């Protein structure tokens, strides 16, 4: 891989932050009706504390599911699409390519995003891996043999 083509750590970091902002806005928009329904039902039937407690449990499970699965699916679909990049990466004009510059398949992209979020849940410091790799690959890049390069 030609080293002058690599995306650069700063670009990748900013792309990730933009993706995080987009995803959190999207997830909170989806959650608004659920929260409204929850507030509406809390004084409807049975003891209010019970209903509220169950509602909060349901909300936590919903948030956990959304915040776990939506990023996986979002990244996998976007990276295996024709643009080969998520919205943050499109804004930073970088894309994800395979070993010979080809597009990743959906399975590869799904594995890449899964490993990405698993490493972040083990310890966020693992995302500093591209700083030390000569070809700027992170752990999830090493596993599926992908590179992040410049180019819209």
């Amino acid at each position, binding site marked *: 891989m030609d080293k002058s083509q690599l995306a*650069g750590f*700063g*670009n990748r970091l*900013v792309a990730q932050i933009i993706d995080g902002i987009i995803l959190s806005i999207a997830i909170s928009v989806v959650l608004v009706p659920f929260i409204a329904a929850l507030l509406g039902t809390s004084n409807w039937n049975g003891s209010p504390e019970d209903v509220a407690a169950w509602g909060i449990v349901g909300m936590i499970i919903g948030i956990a599911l959304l915040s776990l699965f939506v990023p996986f699916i979002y990244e996998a679909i976007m990276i295996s699409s024709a643009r080969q990049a998520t919205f943050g990466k499109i804004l930073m004009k970088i894309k994800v390519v395979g070993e010979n510059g080809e597009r990743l398949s959906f399975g590869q992209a799904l594995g890449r995003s899964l490993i990405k979020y698993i490493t972040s849940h*083990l*310890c966020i410091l693992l995302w*500093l891996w591209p*700083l030390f790799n000569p070809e700027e690959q992170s752990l999830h890049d090493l596993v599926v043999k992908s590179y992040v390069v410049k180019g819209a």
Partner: protein
Amino acid sequence: MFKKLFLTVTALALTVFYFYHDPSVRSFGPKCLIHETTGWYCWGCGGQRAFHALLHGQFAQAFRFNLLVYIVVPLLLMVLYSELFNDFRLFYYLRNRYFPLFLLIFVVIFTISRNLRSFEFLKPPVPKNALHRPPF
């Protein structure tokens, strides 16, 4: 330009957040999976508290929470400098053959030794008046 603005805002926001937010009183976010399931301390445990202590000038306390903060914070500052001033010599030094190997060995030794019995000074101490309330 956009990238530089974004990185500056993020760095400032994180610094201000960790200056006012004490993670040992109340912690946001999911719990550490390694510590919850195994009870072991990984290399990142105590990192947020160490950064908070560092911002308040409590250098010894920061060392006790997590000594890697003295590697990670300068590293991130240098990365921020290289990105802001387009000076990429740092990456050349970081990516030579020996530095990552040395760092990896150091982190592995640190992680193992902070879980051993006679190295309690590497373990993040639990504050006495911590509330440890979940966010909900």
